[in-house]
């Protein structure tokens, strides 16, 4: 669908649907529109500089996206801006625990009470998982894309087939299987450690 000619303000549901469908063009305008208000709010309430505020905004925005993409945020009772501020508040509390102790009052955003912040918890990521990121680049672009489409974006086999130009969902499924096996064998053959690959 061509988005260039869409000249209307989308509802929350439409935005969430587009994001979940992998339409990244819907994201950058949201990022830009809410950035300056967020930075001003964060700098004022948490007495931080613009760089820390921008760090938190990037994290809050990424968490918003991951939660939508993973189906953990399906409806939103507030404006996206309000949601992002509430996530930002949690990020300040959780990830900058020692640095920013301010208590900031915000409108209640029920969806944030169940928020998954673990995306930025590096302690929960194993060496093997981090190695996979590098191994994917050794797989070739098609394989890497298919695996990310399925396991990261949660796209259906049908939509993967359409995007990748495969005949049907069965071909996409077979391709995904082959790519996963290839990844598994590269990981096993190389016996890589994260240090080997990241250094």
């Amino acid at each position, binding site marked *: 669908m061509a988005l260039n000619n*869409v000249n209307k303000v989308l509802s929350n549901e439409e935005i969430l649907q587009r994001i979940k469908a992998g339409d990244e063009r819907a994201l950058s305008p949201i990022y830009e529109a809410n950035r300056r208000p967020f930075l001003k709010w964060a700098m004022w309430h948490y007495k931080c500089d613009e760089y820390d505020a921008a760090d938190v905004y*990037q994290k809050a925005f990424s968490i918003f996206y991951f939660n939508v993409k993973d189906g953990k945020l399906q409806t939103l009772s507030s404006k996206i801006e309000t949601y992002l501020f509430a996530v930002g508040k949690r990020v300040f509390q959780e990830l900058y625990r020692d640095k920013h102790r301010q208590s900031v009052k915000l409108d209640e955003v029920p969806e944030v009470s169940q928020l998954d912040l673990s995306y930025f918890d590096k302690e929960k990521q194993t060496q093997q998982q981090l190695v*996979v990121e590098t191994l994917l680049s050794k797989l070739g672009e098609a394989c890497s894309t298919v695996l990310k489409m399925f396991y990261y974006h949660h796209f259906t086999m049908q939509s993967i087939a359409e995007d990748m130009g495969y005949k049907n969902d069965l071909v996409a499924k077979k391709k995904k299987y082959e790519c996963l096996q290839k990844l*598994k064998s590269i990981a096993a053959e190389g016996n890589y450690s994260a240090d080997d690959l990241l250094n």
Partner: protein
Amino acid sequence: MERTEQIEMYLEGQLQGADLSTFEQEMKQDAALQNEVAEYKELIQGIRIAGQHEFVHLVHTWEKNLAAADVLAEKGITDTQVSPDDSSNVMGSAGPKIVEMTSVKKESRFKMLYMLAAAACVFVLIGVGVVQFVGGNTDAQLFNQNFTHLQATFVERDDSSSYLTEAVDLYEKKQYAAANPKFDAFLAKDPNNIAASLYAGISHLAVGETGKAIPLFQKVIADQNENYTESAQWYLALSYLKNGDKNSAKALLEEIRNTPGHEKREAAKHLLRRLK
């Protein structure tokens, strides 16, 4: 393929009832299956983490572009000059954007007043003969204020590398000039020792030998070892400063400042403010 599918269904919580019980029972009795399940779990989670990292990188790029546009806007360059046609904007954010540019212009006016006030202060200072003080805040002074000794924690010293042992001993006593030939002799034999390269670079920098220090720091950074890279970036920036190469120093300090969690981030922010 069926086995893999079954494992995936189990990992996604899609196996239910009798199928789930049978699979779990099989796993209990089959260590190879247990390993296979664990392996797939790691691979799939790894793919997800890779996707997340890609997105975080994309967001970081947006932020860098917008921050750069802010800087240009502050300098009075208009929005249309710096940003391409954003026809993919489906959120109707043209409104906030216009408001934003207006507020930037207002801030710029205040900034202009501050600049005029600051300029007036400088003239007053010149008038009372304190030019020495203002002009004295040079790159060299900033270097001296920011250069500190880094303890050689990571160097492994043993009998087989007496040059290194001697070099590090002298370095730790801050006898840099004496330490340098020892470091050089050691690195001539073992140029890939990254820890030694870092401390040798610092030692050379301490006595103003930036020509020797800079390639050493560059080598450490290229090696990408997480124990040394951040320190090497910081000392490389100081080396540029010492050389009077303010642009290279600023570029590197900005990179440090923009790296979340960088050990020298606060120091870089502080130094950048002084450099402006």
